[in-house]
Each structure stands twice: as C-alpha cells, then as structure tokens.
C-alpha cells in the first residue's frame, strides 16, 4: 500500500475532464492550494466543483474559473469573485446554492454510508421545491441526498504515509467531511511525517478515507479579511 505521491501534479494526474470534485476550505482558509494550482495548469475542463465558496478572482477556485475549467459550481456562498459573477450572468457557469450546514452534512452522510439526511434548513423556501418533506415530532424536515464526488481534494496540517490527517484551527472546516466523501480522496499536507509520529488520539481523519497524500510546498495561505486590534 503506497499512498504517498510526489507532488500535486502527480496526485491529480488522472483526474479527467468532466469530473466532479470536492474541494475543502472555508473562504481561502484551509484550501488545497497546491492541488488547485496543479489543476489550473492541467488543461482539464468541464469540472463540477463542490466547495463552500468559490475563491477570489486570483486565488483558490477563482484560478480554475479564470481558465474556464469549471462547468458547474455547487457552494453555499459565492461572493467576493467578479469573474464568477461575470460567468454566472453570461450563462457560462451553472451554479447550485446549498445551505452551508446541508452541504457539510451531505458530505458527512456519504462518509458515514448514509444515503440521505433530513434537515429543517430551507423549509418554506425555494430550496425545498421538489424535495420530499417529512414531519418528525411536529416539525418539517427536507430530505437531502448524500454527496459523492469522483475526487475529494483536501488540505491538512499534518499527515502520515497511512493517510491519517490532523487539521489546524478553523482550517479544518469542510476538509474532514469531504475527505470522507470522495471515491478517491487526495490530501495535501503542510507536513508529511513518518508513520508512528502522529498520536493516534489526535487523528481527525483516519487514513482509511484517504487514498493519496503528498507534502505540499510554498503555501501562501492568503488572508481574505485581515482584521487586527491595536492593544
């Protein structure tokens, strides 16, 4: 069993045009930077991308949008991206908006082997149109199907050759959930350590969910909204 890949280009080399990808991250926090860069130069296109956000114009998924590599975007919030807006309004890009908790839980359900979930989010709104509604204890819930992606691409802080992952701070966000929902899951890590170095008590994503892992490099970790205090 060898899960360790040399770099991002190596790990994503067999992703075909038309694939459905999940990409971890919240805003620009915890996004798989190396893999996105490699996808941007890979030449593949007609991708369906499932991610909470769509990056900014020149970073994150924005890089794939610039190259017209994305056919459909599935997200909960897509502000902060002028090129995204242009492609949406011109009809080049399909968009499906999903409540954030529903998005997260649909990924989780997939990794837990559950075909669907019931959630109250969206009841009484346009999100509920055409969906099965069922009452439990007098409250209405929507049936939402589990998500599965051809490839899930996530970013972790540390990982080992077994594919075990540890995330840092709020860079965890969607990463462990999407890691569970890929037919093939690719993890890029800031630090790839030897097997045995990670404390088993501290693993967030057990390696069984991860098919490929590589040590990323030159992380920019761009900050979207730098806010500080003076004292």
């Amino acid at each position, binding site marked *: 069993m060898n899960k360790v890949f040399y770099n991002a280009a190596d790990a994503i080399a067999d992703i075909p045009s038309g694939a459905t990808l999940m990409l971890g991250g*919240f*805003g*620009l*926090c*915890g996004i798989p930077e190396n893999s996105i860069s490699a996808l941007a130069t890979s030449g593949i296109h007609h991708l369906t991308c499932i991610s*909470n956000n769509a990056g900014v114009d020149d970073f994150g998924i924005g890089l794939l949008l610039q190259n017209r590599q994305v056919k459909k975007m599935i*997200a*909960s*919030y*897509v*502000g902060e991206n002028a090129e995204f*807006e242009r492609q*949406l*309004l011109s009809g080049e890009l399909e968009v499906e*908006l999903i*409540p*954030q*908790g*529903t*998005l*997260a*839980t649909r*990924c*989780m359900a997939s990794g837990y082997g559950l075909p669907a979930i019931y*959630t*109250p*989010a*969206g*009841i*009484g*709104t*346009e*999100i509920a149109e055409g969906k099965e509604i069922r009452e439990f204890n007098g409250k209405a819930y929507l049936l939402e199907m589990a998500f599965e992606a051809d490839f899930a691409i996530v970013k972790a*802080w540390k990982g080992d050759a077994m594919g075990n992952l540890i*995330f*840092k*701070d*709020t*860079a*965890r*966000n*969607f*990463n*462990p*959930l999407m890691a569970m929902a890929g037919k093939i899951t690719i993890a890029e890590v800031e630090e790839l350590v030897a097997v045995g170095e990670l404390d088993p008590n501290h693993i*967030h994503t057990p390696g069984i969910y991860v098919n490929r892992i590589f040590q990323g490099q030159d992380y920019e*970790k*761009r*900050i*979207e*909204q*730098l*806010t*500080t*205090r*003076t*004292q």
Partner: protein
Amino acid sequence: MALNKFQIAQRIAKELKDGYYVNLGIGIPTLVANYIPEGVNVVLQSENGLLGMGPFPLQGEEDADLINAGKQTITTIPGSAFFDSAMSFGMIRSGKVDLTVLGAMEVSENGDIANWKIPGKMVKGMGGAMDLVASAKNIIVAMMHTNPKGESKLLPSCTLPLTGIKCVKKIVSDLAVLEIVDGHFKLLERAPGVSVEEIVSKTLGKLIVDGEIPEMDVN
C-alpha cells in the same frame, strides 16, 4: 433619534444572559461582541468551526488558519474548541446554541425572514443563514426599520425570497425593539426621542402597541 448601528448592537447585547452560547451573524450582529455586559459570560460560536471566539489579533499575530465566518482574522480564548462544519451545524440544529443574532432585509408579522436574495441582483448565496434560522431556539434580528426609500421592512408578509419561516422572536431596529407573538409585531421599546406614531407609521405589518412604551436604555 434613530439608533446608529453601534447602538443597535449595544441594545441587543442586553439580551445576552450568563452562560449563553451565541452565534453572531455578519454586520451589525458582529458588533454585539463589543458590548457584552459586565458579569455576563457568553461563548461565541463561529459556524466555520470554533466555540470561544476571541477578539481580533494584535497586528503581526494574525494566523491565516484562524478566521471567523466573515473570513476575518480572529483569536481563540482559554477554553476554545475547534470542530468541523458538520458538527458546527449539528450543535446549531440540535438547539445547543442559545441565541442567534442576524441581519434581515425583511421580516414578516409571523416571523418569516428574508435576508439572502434580491431578484434581479447577483445572488451570493445563503451561507449558513437557512440552517441557523431553521433551528435556532431564539433568533434576534438586527435591522433598519425602513429601506433607503423609507419603506417599511416589517411587513404583513415578505416580498423577497424567504430564508426561513416563523422563526424570528425579536427585532431590534434603529427605531424600536419589537417582539413577534401570535402573528403580529408587539412594540416593547422605542429609540430615545422616537415617537410611537413614527414607529406605527413605519411598520406595515400588524403592530400591537399596549400601554406606555418605554425608551431604550442606550448610550
């Protein structure tokens, strides 16, 4: 005088109770954190995966891995905890979060809220708002009473696409504090110097005014 956004936040902060877990939305709700009353300890939840949100970092101490739901750099406090996005909405859905404060474009007299989409304009998405309003036990809306044209945003029924139904419990606007009970707005307090008549004229939904209406206690 109508309240400014800082005074709206200040008034909402008076609703916080010791021990509350609170989710503050983007905009005016975020400002509520600056006015938490002395002796009241609350834990702020950020839906991107943090309980125990601290203040903004000192310059130079920011960390790209540590942000709030508005994508601003933040800090932790002693006792903070991180978790993934499914658990984050799990604690919201299961009613563990005591209070949610968020903004709105429109609220109806039965507590429906619209705050995510304006037909004809670029739709940015609902983010976590639909999950929050569908599940939160107690929702306070921070909003302007009227739109820039002077039209009421407190309506018999919302005209914009809905975010959630029958969920808003209380509104703190620039003019008034109102409760939503049994399908109508009930006036509880008015902004200092703002008359009941003005509030009545700017509230299109059914409004109950019962007895003397005190002025809000804000600085």
